[in-house]
């Protein structure tokens, strides 16, 4: 534990306090579990590699986490409504390609190119939302389809080529500043700010509570006069916007527009949300849990790399993690009935 307290992990201490103030006194394990898992993972990797707790490495973890972390915000909103978004990573990749191609080939001002990228990801969110609400298709199928559509468009539009020579604005969020021996990216700060904003909105606004209500009992919500379709549409569009912000973070981190981005992030984001304790059955969850979940995924990937474990095994571990998390969710759901 002592090794952890000096790191940026101290940031999470206030969040523990918030959990006891929420209106839903869930099982302490449900909120404490992810945090303990994160601490356990950190402790384990600290014993396995001397470099794990170094300032440089932790800064790397945080930079890797910012993309998954921001996608996980959108994913959390969708899962809270009892849906799932399998298109998140591919939509993010498309957003990155649009931003970088528009800024270079089309020569648009960088800010406008970023706005266009956000517009495209929001549009995909709108498409998902319309198919889920108006055509009444299950979100699983809808987003499985849009995942492939977004992937194909990304490949076609980019010619499967990486976009380079980006204007500085597109990579500015990857710039770092020094903080207590580590380098913190501006993107990480943006991610934390977004988590704070969404945490507050979900807790303190009527719209935020309606997201939970729709996930809890859609029919009961409709009977109270709330339009579940409007809530769902808003959630999917907003999720698209978060994927778009993640596009910018991804472009910033790698310095290029990468048509093959988002492939690990797709499942990683879902894993992060479920590890964070948000129920796939909808209506229960905690946005800050998703941040912890994203950190767990990031720590696993980073720690396994440091230990020299090949990336195939990392994929295997992520697969096991997500099944463990979903199994825990399923069991706690059954016992709470």
């Amino acid at each position, binding site marked *: 534990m002592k090794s952890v307290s000096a790191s940026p992990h101290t940031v999470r201490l206030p969040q523990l306090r918030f959990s006891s103030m929420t209106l839903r*006194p869930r099982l302490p394990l449900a909120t404490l579990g992810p945090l303990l898992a994160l601490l356990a993972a950190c402790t384990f990797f600290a014993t396995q590699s001397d470099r794990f707790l170094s300032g440089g490495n932790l800064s790397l973890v945080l930079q890797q986490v910012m993309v998954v972390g921001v996608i996980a915000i959108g994913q959390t909103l969708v899962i809270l409504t009892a849906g799932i978004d399998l298109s998140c990573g591919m939509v993010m990749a498309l957003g990155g390609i649009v931003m970088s191609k528009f800024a270079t080939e089309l020569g648009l001002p960088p800010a406008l190119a970023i706005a266009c990228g956000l517009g495209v990801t929001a549009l995909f969110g709108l498409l998902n939302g319309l198919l889920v609400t108006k055509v009444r298709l299950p979100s699983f199928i809808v987003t499985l389809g849009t995942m492939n559509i977004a992937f194909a468009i990304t490949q076609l539009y980019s010619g499967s080529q990486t976009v380079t020579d980006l204007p500085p604005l597109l990579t500015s969020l990857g710039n770092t500043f020094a903080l207590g021996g580590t380098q913190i990216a501006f993107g990480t700060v943006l991610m934390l700010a977004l988590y704070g904003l969404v945490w507050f909105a979900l807790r*303190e*606004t009527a719209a935020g*509570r309606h997201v*939970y*209500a729709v996930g809890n009992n859609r029919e009961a919500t409709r009977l*109270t006069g709330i339009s579940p379709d409007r809530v769902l549409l808003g959630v999917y569009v907003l999720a698209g916007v978060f994927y778009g912000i993640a596009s910018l973070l991804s472009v910033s981190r790698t310095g290029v527009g990468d048509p093959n981005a988002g492939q690990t992030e797709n499942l990683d984001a879902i894993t992060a949300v479920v590890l964070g304790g948000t129920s796939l059955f909808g*209506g229960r969850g905690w946005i800050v849990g998703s941040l912890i979940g994203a950190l767990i995924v990031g720590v696993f990937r980073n720690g396994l790399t440091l230990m020299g474990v090949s990336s195939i095994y990392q994929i295997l571990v992520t697969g096991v993690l997500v099944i463990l998390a979903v199994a825990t969710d399923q069991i706690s759901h059954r016992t709470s009935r």
Partner: protein
Amino acid sequence: MNTIQPLVMQARGLVKRYGQVTALDGADFELRAGEILAVIGDNGAGKSSLIKALSGAIVPDEGEILLDGSPVHFRSPSDARRAGIETVYQELAVAPAMTIAENLFLGRELRRAGFFGRFLGLLDKPRMLSESIKHMSDLKIGIRSMTQPVETLSGGQRQGVAVARSAAFAKHVVIMDEPTAALGVKEGNMVLDLIRRVRDKGLPVVLISHNMPHVFEVADRIHIARLGKRAAVVNPKKIGMSDTVAVMTGAMRPEDIPAECLAH
């Protein structure tokens, strides 16, 4: 009731057709102030179509609905709700993982005063909490904490939350659609007590139920629906359960009900 109370809600000649099927065939309805009116009927008697018309869930093809003497036209349940008619549904229509206070105010959240409430939609949680305590204690629902999730409550207590929500926001009428159907005996009796308390608060209650003992226990008058019409309105203190069921099923003609058993 000794003196005849004024009419709160009234329907005349309601007709509702679904293709070849006539669900309502000129149905009348009268609800008086301060009463519990039970609505009973066999399957297909037009009972649920009548209730849906009164609660705005369907729009009748013909006929009129009067609320406090003036005609109303509900195009949606929200219209009826705005007119002061609240409905409690058979299925427990609550959000289980949300707190009692949140459920009571779901869709009608109190917002903070000023800019933050109006433009950012920030909730006034302290006021919602204190008003929930008031609404729940009005109906003598003994629940310790308004911040506990509804899923920690028993079925009867959950229905209590739904009843309290309706009673808190209804200005004219509370409609309860099979509120005890999903509950056990003890829980059902608890909800019957609640229904009486809602009436005693001054809100007339329309109770739809298949459960004859429950109907006879709480109803002041019983509206018997049959073949899309109102067959009769009877007084449960004068008529027996078997005669009531006989009228409902058609084994007894409404004209054969002794005059003293009818309610006005």
